[in-house]
């Protein structure tokens, strides 16, 4: 696969990988996934910690829950969320046939 197509060359300039309609549908679905993951990010990065004081009243194995969320809980959400994102986005790629060869 060439890294760069030549834009001056009319042949390649019209040979986009997919047609415009599929492209728009693909991007809509990709954007939706982006917003879902961004919401996860906002929740785990910020939202849940607004309640750190209240959560701290719950203690599990010595961990006050508010402290635990900032020290480990949110991090686990980030890691699992990213693996899920990578998998989900691959499925979307394949659904629209835009995955790499």
């Amino acid at each position, binding site marked *: *696969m060439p*890294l*760069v*197509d*030549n*834009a*001056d060359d009319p042949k*390649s*300039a019209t040979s*986009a*990988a*997919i047609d*415009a309609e599929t*492209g728009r549908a*693909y*991007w809509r679905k*990709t954007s939706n*996934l*982006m917003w879902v*993951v*961004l919401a*996860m*990010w906002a929740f*785990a*990065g*910020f939202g849940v*910690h607004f309640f*750190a*004081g209240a959560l*701290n009243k719950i*203690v*599990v*194995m*010595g*961990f*006050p829950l*508010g*402290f*635990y969320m*900032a*020290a*480990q809980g*949110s*991090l*686990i959400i*980030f*890691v699992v*969320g*990213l*693996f899920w*994102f*990578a998998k989900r*986005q*691959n499925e979307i*790629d394949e659904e629209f*046939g*835009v*995955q*790499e*060869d």
Partner: protein
Amino acid sequence: MAASGEKDPFIASLGRIYAGYTGGFVVFVILLAILEQMGVPDRIIGYLFVFLTIGVYAYIGIISRTAAVAEYYVAGRRVPALYNGMATGSDWMSAASFIGMAGSLYALGYGGLAFILGWTGGYMLVAILLAPYLRKFGQYTVPDFLGARFGGNMARSIGVIVLLTSSFVYVVAQIVGVGIITQRFLDVSFGVAVFVGLAGILVCSMLGGMRAVTWTQVAQYIILIIAYLIPAILMSAKITGVPIPQLMYGVALEKITVLEQGFRAAGMTPPPGVTGFHAAPFLGANGQFSGSAAFNFFALVFCLMVGTAALPHILMRYFTTPSVREARQSVAWSLFFIFLLYFTAPAYAAFGKLEIYQTVIGQPIANLPEWIKNWQLMSPYGVNWINIVDVNKDGIVQWGDFRIHPDVVVLATPEIAGMPYVIAGLVAAGGLAAALSTADGLLLALANALSHDVYYKMIDRNAPTAKRLVISRVLLVFVAVLAAWTAGNAGADILFLVAWAFSIAAAGLFAALVMGVWYKKTTDAAACWGMGVGYAFTFIYLLWTEFAGLDFVELFGSKDAIVNAAKQTVGLAKVDPELKAYAQKIVDNAASVKDGALSWFGSLFFTTDTVVLRGRTVARLWTLNNISGGIIGVPLSFLTIYVVSMFTRAPSEAMMNFIDDIRVPRGGVRLVDQKEAVE
């Protein structure tokens, strides 16, 4: 290109190579442990650790030398997701993460978790907003993308300026870190130590560029994670009987809370800079909930996250994967490998604190444990690593008498847990790996910006390959020597600048990169203005609040804040006599001082005040520490791009095609301007 990666014998045997390497390292540590038991002096053990690990990195660096441009800049784009994740992990985790983080958590308790959250959550932004698209674009540097998307040299130059500013202060701090560790374990002066470290950094990166740095960073990650986990596991086993520190430090947190209550009941106060409520969030100095503390916490989390997603030495790592798909997976692996260290750091802090509270506080000073005495020596920061200040002269270590430098928490854990010296050597090797790997990545980002973006793209478009690589290497050495010189001369005084790198990169680059992919109507002029405004605003704000706090508060503060700032300035130990006289005049005429001209703006949220930090009167707009300066710069940059885009001519049809292409994994990229193509 992607297909050939699978058949590549080198890539196929990576698992075997690094498994063998890990096994070899473990055997090496066991051998040193045996040598230690046979009576080989500690100093020799320290030497062996430092020189043998640097030797291995140098060996990898030398066998990975290359004369191909794509190998030099993007490791031939064949680094599998997992290994790129490891390389990014060690690229990311610096001396500050390895040595400093646990100490910050020790001091700040819950407040320190802002660093844990901020330095991990940013990877979500990298994965969903940037990495796959930058990989699809598929050139060599972050300014390459800015140049191609936003019409050439203007955008490219601004990108290069932001990159140079943020990466340079960062790399200087890494070299200081290398210097501190080398100094302690080789017993040489700081100036010499810096240059020994520099040699270690250069042998990794000079001959092989990105290819050498990648495979060295994987090796460094393995050493740093082993070195970080083993002492924590041993400490956990010692204190709780279970060798899983990440699960067991809850027990320590519980005991710390009880001990803190006991200390308070006995009328004691914590030492300066250390929280008296380890697990409680958002407290002011009085132990009550503070809105300002919460505001600072979330602002810091935000700036560190967005900064992570804008630092070029991290983003450029995702140019090296074989495909877009692997770029996404690679971000997830990166975060996983970073997570392994970051979710262990609070355990270090808790176990260290518990041990100190149980066995040191309340003891007679004459009767302290041996490890404390070993650390009562001068640090490069100008105070003892551990400093016992007997405030009420009763010969007993009170809560507030025990002053510990944050770096000691990790470095002294082996001794606290009564482990042999070989473990201390292992920690040093880990810290060194962390500092070297980050320095390598940063130096490469700096040198590539100068050689590829400035020299090749803007000065000599026709330079032959051989000449370009020579220029790259010369610039790499030049930047490295300049950084080492700065580190040797300004040293620890400039470490606080690292925190600025995040805000500067965030405000300068993040909005333009994200809008470039996600908002098609972003115009060339808008992106240039957005980057320029975000960068200039944040940088000026940081300099102004840090070095002219009194002046800042005179504009944004109330009359009380101004008088208070003047009093703080008069009370500083070292202050310019002219400024002192000026501040004295304000204090003397306190009654006639008026509110600053923009004090309405300064009191939109909370107030504008000043605090004495680093021997200066530092201003805080809305009580926000200037480490979080990006909280204003980032939205301002987005807003500028959006508004200017509405008033400038929409991007061309060809540009729309270009954006369509980078959004889709399959196919090539139709560049608007062929001059922007690499090679």
